[in-house]
């Protein structure tokens, strides 16, 4: 898990995402081009409503650009049918959400197991992988706990373990520390560092400057465009 190949995972070209509103069309993303390379660590910052999350959703193939193109591993995502897109997300992309979205009726281990089950991984392999991942995020002792028995930071760490369950090449995190206090947020940020160091490309949308500063590339968005790009 240490090699950092420079091949492109996802490439957005002149992407625009427009929403039809009663008052007229709103452009969440305007004519934006972006490339995410394997093993990259990119943070996207900007004021509320500037289009950060929309861009993340487009990169994660859960939203479709109104114009422009998106390729994932060289495949034109627009040409993929819904089932193929789901498979792409299942096997290549991990999502971490601000609100965790762990399933409350499942234990931490079962939450981590779930995407693997969907991917058709055998039960013994799933159990082993879930155990490894919970150990990786420091929650091996909490494997049998349900989300209601975990703290916010613990829930987000389980969510990260779940996102990594099918060994994705790209991890997308939308405000992963948004609901956490500073100290807990730093633990989660450190975990994302580690995930990236182990070879997974990470794109994180955040208002948290401390989290953004950990990325090697920081994109600042304004009015649906990349206003500034800094590289560490």
């Amino acid at each position: 898990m240490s090699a950092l190949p420079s091949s492109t995972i996802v490439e957005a070209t002149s992407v625009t995402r427009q929403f039809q509103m009663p008052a007229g069309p709103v452009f969440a993303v305007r004519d934006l081009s972006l490339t995410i390379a394997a093993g990259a660590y990119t943070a996207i910052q900007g004021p509320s409503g500037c289009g950060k999350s929309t861009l993340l959703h487009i990169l994660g193939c859960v939203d479709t650009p109104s114009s422009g193109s998106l390729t994932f591993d060289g495949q034109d995502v627009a040409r993929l049918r819904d089932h193929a897109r789901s498979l792409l997300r299942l096997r290549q992309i991990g999502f971490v959400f601000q609100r965790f979205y762990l399933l409350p009726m499942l234990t931490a281990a079962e939450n981590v197991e779930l995407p693997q089950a969907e991917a058709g991984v055998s039960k013994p392999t799933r159990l082993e992988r879930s155990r490894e991942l919970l150990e990786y995020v420091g929650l091996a002792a909490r494997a049998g706990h349900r989300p209601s028995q975990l703290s916010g930071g613990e829930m987000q760490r389980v969510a990260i373990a779940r996102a990594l369950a099918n060994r994705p090449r790209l991890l997308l995190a939308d405000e992963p520390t948004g609901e956490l206090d500073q100290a807990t947020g730093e633990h989660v940020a450190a975990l994302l560092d580690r995930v990236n160091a182990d070879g997974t490309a990470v794109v994180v949308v955040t208002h948290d400057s401390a989290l953004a500063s950990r990325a090697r590339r920081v994109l600042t968005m304004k009015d649906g465009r990349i206003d500034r790009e800094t590289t560490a």
Partner: protein
Amino acid sequence: MSSVLSFAWRSLVRQPARSTLGILGVAAVGALLFDMLLLSEGLVLSMRDMLDRMGFDVRVTASEPLPGQGADIEHAPGAKRALEALPAVRSVTSVRSEAAVMRGNGISVPDAMFISVDGPTHPWTVTDGRDIAADDEMVVNRFTADTLKLSPGSVVNISASCGGRAEAPPRTDFRVVGVVTIPFEAPQRAAGATTIPGLEAACGGTRAGIADFLAVASAGDTAAALAAIAAARPDLTPFTNEQIVGRLQQGGFAYFRQISTVLITVTVSFALLLITVLLTVSVNQRLGEVAALRALGFSRRRVVLDVFCESALIVGMGGLLSLPLGWVLAAALDDILKRMPGIPEQLHFFVFRPDALVVHAALLCATAVLAAVYPMQLVARLPIATTLRNEVIG
């Protein structure tokens, strides 16, 4: 599939109160549905069973109306002999009944059913004592025996109305030789039976030689007996048990089928609405979770299947629970309906038949599918990105 079912089960367990409510609702509705299915054919099946158990497969009347409802057969002994001579006929029993006042031990019962027969097969079952063997002997039903304090060996005095004739009939004494169960006897109604000569004697000899109907036991082929009777006596109308039941189905019994059809529609619609509302509320409360699962790569088919399995589990468990509940309810309702005056003791409104179970299961399956359509559509058409964005803003 088992993992999807297990997932759906855990989703239900997650909201125990709502799920329990849904299952109980389906159980209640399913029980009513089951009862309506039993009611729709219950009377017909019960009537058919009673007719079959009496040991006759053809009944012959003087006119088109059903036995006991039309004109009497005049010269019944001659008609009886004519039918007995047919090879397709094994035996013929004349049946005539009149209203009567019964007296015994200083107690009297008005409006008793006074039956008489002439033939080898008697349409009753002896439960105490023996059957009649002479014209001055009589068997009575349990209600009469208890009310008039009669037992084999007692004497009962009869005043028969004999076709509503004006002059008072003579009082005739009969010796009680047995207590019987009569298939069409109503509870709380006195009934007794003797021979046709015995009844004619009680009527003072007036209107002798008539019968309400002739009950025929075929030699084994009901259709052949029917055809032979129709050919031999075109002035009479023979009915098979099947035809009698068919007539009843077209007549008064049709109301029960219509009522049960309406109630089945209402109960299924109610179940449909109940489950649709429960599932829709449940899905709406976890749209964020569903969107997150889709973002994590769960296919549309999978999340739709989850909702369907939840519906199937609610309906399946409620449906299973509805069967014993429906059974108990049917017994209670049957008991209530049988208290109506004139309903024979052995007639049942709710009668179990295996195909009712099949229809019950099929209707509930259809309900589970239809009830899940709208919430499945909600999940299938869920815009992932918009939902995730709205959840954060919300």
